[in-house]
C-alpha cells in the first residue's frame, strides 16, 4: 500500500511541475505586455521599456524560468505586478471564499444526485425516471451565467427573499452554490443511474436477492460499493472543475474568490499572480485526485493487495 502511495505522490508532483511549466509558457506567449498594461494608453515606448527592465521582464525566458522554479520551491511567490502587494497573501485571502463556495456546491451536488440517481435506476423506465433524466440533462447544459442571473432576478428581485450579491452570510451562499452545483448534479445523477443499472444486473446481486436479503440491504451493501469506483473517479474530476467553474459564478454573484482574481490577473498580464493562482487550483485538483486514488484502496480490497 505504501508503495502505491509513494508512486501516486510521485506522479502528482510530476503533474504539478508540468502544469507550472505550461502556465509559465502560456501566459508569456499571450500577446500583450504587463508593463504596457500597467502604464496604460498614455505611456511611450521608452516608459514601457524602462518598466520592463525594472520588473525583470527583459531577461531571457530560461533565466526567468529558472528564477520562477527556485521561487516556487522556496515558497517565495513575490509581488503582484499589477497590485503591488505580495501574491501569496492576495491568493490566500481569496482561497477561503472559493473553498466555501466549492464546498457548498459539492455538498449540494452530492446530496441531490445520489438520491435522484438511485431512484431513477430503481424505477427505470417509469415517468419518474424520464423526468429525472431530462432534468439532469438540462442541469448539465444550462450555462451557469444565465442560470445565475435568472436566479438573481427571480429570488432577489422578484420575490426578494435572498440577497443579490456579496458573500458575508449564509443567505448569500445559497444562490451561488446552487448555480455552481447544477452541472455537477446533471453529470453525477446520470452517472449514478447508469452505474447502478449496470451493477444491478450482475450475478452476485441476483444471488444476494435469491438468498433472501432485503432489497435495501442488497442495494446498500452490495450494489453501491461496486458501482462507486467509477463514480468516485468522476466526482474527483468534477470537484476539480468546480474550482475552475467558480470563475463565472464568482463574477456573476460578486463572490471574492480565487477565480475572479485569476481572470483579472490574466487580463492585466500579471505573471506572478496568474502563476500562483493556477498553482493553487492545480495543486487542489491534484490533491483531490490523489485522495480519490487512495480511496480506491478503501473501496476495493483487490487494489489494497496489489
Amino acid at each position, binding site marked *: 500500500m505504501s508503495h502505491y502511495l509513494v508512486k501516486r505522490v510521485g506522479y502528482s508532483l510530476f503533474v504539478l511541475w508540468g502544469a507550472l511549466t505550461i502556465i509559465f509558457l502560456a501566459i508569456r506567449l499571450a500577446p500583450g505586455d504587463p508593463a504596457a498594461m500597467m502604464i496604460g*494608453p498614455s505611456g511611450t515606448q521608452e516608459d514601457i521599456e524602462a518598466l520592463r527592465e525594472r520588473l525583470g521582464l527583459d531577461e531571457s525566458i530560461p533565466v526567468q524560468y529558472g528564477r520562477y522554479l527556485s521561487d516556487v520551491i522556496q515558497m517565495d511567490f513575490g509581488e503582484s505586478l499589477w497590485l503591488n502587494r505580495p501574491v501569496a497573501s492576495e491568493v490566500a485571502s481569496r482561497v477561503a471564499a472559493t473553498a466555501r463556495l466549492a464546498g457548498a456546491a459539492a455538498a449540494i451536488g452530492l446530496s441531490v444526485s445520489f438520491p435522484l440517481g438511485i431512484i431513477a435506476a430503481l424505477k427505470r423506465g417509469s415517468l419518474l425516471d424520464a423526468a429525472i433524466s431530462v432534468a439532469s440533462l438540462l442541469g448539465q447544459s444550462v450555462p451557469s451565467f444565465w442560470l445565475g442571473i435568472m436566479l438573481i432576478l427571480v429570488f432577489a428581485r422578484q420575490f*426578494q427573499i435572498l440577497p*443579490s*450579491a456579496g*458573500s458575508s452570510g*449564509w443567505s*448569500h451562499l445559497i444562490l451561488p452554490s446552487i448555480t455552481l452545483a447544477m452541472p455537477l448534479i446533471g453529470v453525477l445523477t446520470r452517472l449514478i443511474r447508469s452505474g447502478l443499472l449496470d451493477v444491478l444486473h450482475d450475478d452476485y446481486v441476483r444471488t444476494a436477492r435469491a438468498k433472501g436479503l432485503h432489497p435495501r440491504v442488497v442495494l446498500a451493501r452490495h450494489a453501491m460499493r461496486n458501482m462507486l469506483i467509477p463514480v468516485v473517479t468522476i466526482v474527483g474530476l468534477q470537484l476539480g472543475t468546480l474550482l475552475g467553474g467558480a470563475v463565472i459564478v464568482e463574477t456573476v454573484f460578486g463572490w471574492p474568490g480565487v477565480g475572479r482574481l485569476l481572470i483579472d490577473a490574466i*487580463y492585466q498580464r500579471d505573471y506572478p499572480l496568474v502563476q500562483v493562482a493556477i498553482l493553487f487550483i492545480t495543486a487542489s485538483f491534484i490533491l483531490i485526485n490523489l485522495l480519490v486514488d487512495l480511496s480506491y484502496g478503501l473501496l476495493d480490497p483487490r487494489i489494497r493487495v496489489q
Partner: protein
Amino acid sequence: MTATRHITSESVTSLIQAHESGAMTRRTLVRRLLALGVSAPLAGVLAARPELVAAQATPASGAPAGELTLVLPRSIEGIDPHGAFAVEESTSVILTMYLDTLIARDPETGDLVPSLATGWEATSDTSWRFDLREGVTFHDGTGFTSADVKASLERVLELDGPLKPLWAQVESVETPDPLTVIINTTEPLGTIPVNATLLFIGPAAGMSEDGFWTNPTGIGPFKFASWVPDSEMIMEANADYWGGAPLLERLIVRDIPEPAARLTALETGEIDFTFQIAPDQLPALQDNPDLVIDSAQSYGYYFNWFNAQREPFTDARVRQAMTYALDVEAIVTELMASVGQRAQAPIPPTVFGFEAQTPYEYDPERAMSLLADAGYPDGFETTVQWNPDSGPQDRALIQTMISYWDAIGVKVESLEKERGLWIEDLVALNWDMNFQTNVVRTGDADFTLRRLYVSEANRNGYKNEELDNILIASAATTDQEEREQLFGDACRIIWDEAVGIFPIDLIVNYVYQSGIEGFVPAPSSVPNFRSVTVPGS
C-alpha cells in the same frame, strides 16, 4: 464577516424613521428590513410596532449618523494615491473620501477652491508658493505640515505612475517653514494649480513603507476602517475633519461586478447608491419612484483618431470626409439619450480651454466629393480598433458609424481587441483608426491636448508645427487668460484638420434611493459624500 454586521441599529432605525415620516410604505419597510438580513418574523414585528425601536432614534444633532452603501463602476484595485491606480475612477472616488488635496474643485462651479492649501501664487516664472492650512491633523493625530506635501510630491515622481507626467518639470520642492511649500520647476508650468487637484497628501512618516496603503492613515472627511478586496471597503466619519464632520457615520463600498445583480441590489434596497447605469436600463429606473437619477456633464468624451501616418488618412480631406459622413444628431438622439450629447470641440465644455467649434453637419455628398478630390472616388477599405467596455453603447456606436461610412463607399472592418493587445498596438501606432474614450482628469485641457497632441508624443501620427508651438506655449505661461486663448486656437486646429472625429461628450449619471440628500454630481465623476445624508438621520 457575518451577516449581522449589516443590521446596525442605525440602519434599522433610519428605515423605521423613514416609514414613520411617511416616506416609505410598510411593505417597502418590511422588504428593506429583509434585504438587510433581518429575519422575517422580526421584520414583521418591527414594521407593526415601530415604537419598539423609535426610542433609540434621534442621535445628538450634529453628530454624523446613518450609513450609505455604494457600488463603484469598477472594482477597487488599490488606494495608493501616487501609484499605478492613481487616476482610475474607482480609486479616485475612494481617495476623495479618506484623503485631501491641496486644491479642490467646487463641484457646481468647477472653480479651484482652497483645501489643504489656503492660498497659492506664482512667485516667479518657475516657482509657485503654497500656503498651508493650520491646525489640520491626520487621522492618527499627527499634525499636517509642509513635509508631508514634499514627501507626497516626491513620491509621485519616484513611483513613475500616471501622475508623473503632470509634474515632469518639477526640479525641487522646498519647505521653508511647516506651513509653506515652494515648488520650483525647470520651465514655466502654468498647470500647477490644476495638477494640485490630483495630488493627494499622505503622511511623510510611513507612507512609503510596504503595506501602508492596505491600511492607511488618511486626512480626509472619512477614515479608512477596513478592506476586503473584491468584496467590501468600509470608511467611518472623521468627526475632527477641518472642513466640518461629514453628515454620514459610515460609508460601505461594495463590489458587485455583474450589472444585473447591481441593479437588483439597488431595487431591493440592499445598496443605496451606484454610479453609471447602462443607457438601456435607465428608462426602467426612471419609472421607479423609489430611485433618483442624478446626472452631470462630465470630463469624458468619445473620439475616433485617424493614424495620420497611414494612407489615406495622411490627407486632411479624407479625414474630413469621414467626419461629414456621420449624422451625429441622429446618433445622439437614438443611441446616447441620457448618456451623451453632441460634442462641439475636441474636449468637453466642462474643461478649461474649451472653445466651441463649427459643427460638421451631416453631408454625405460633400463627403464623397472630398474623397473624389483626394483621389478616392470609389472609396477605400480600412479598419477601426477598439477595446470593448470602453464606454456606454460603444459597440452600437461603432456599428452605426461603420454603416454611415459604408454609405459613402468606405468599408470599415471593426477590430475588437482585448485590452492588453489594444494598448500594445495603440502605443506602437499599429492601427488605421482607433476608437476610445478619454477623461480629462484635471478639468484642464493641458491634460489631454498638450500631452497627446504634440508631435513629440506621437500618439496618432499627426504632426503640425503650428499646433506644437501653441501647445508648448500654453504650458509655458502662468497667465490663465493667455492659456485659454491658446487652447482655443489648439481646439480649432485639431477640429478643422479632423485629427480625429469627436462626436460625443459623455454624461455621468448616478442612481440612488430617494430620500438621500445633499449629493452634488461632479463633472469629474469623483463626487464627495461629505454633505450627503440618508433618510432618518
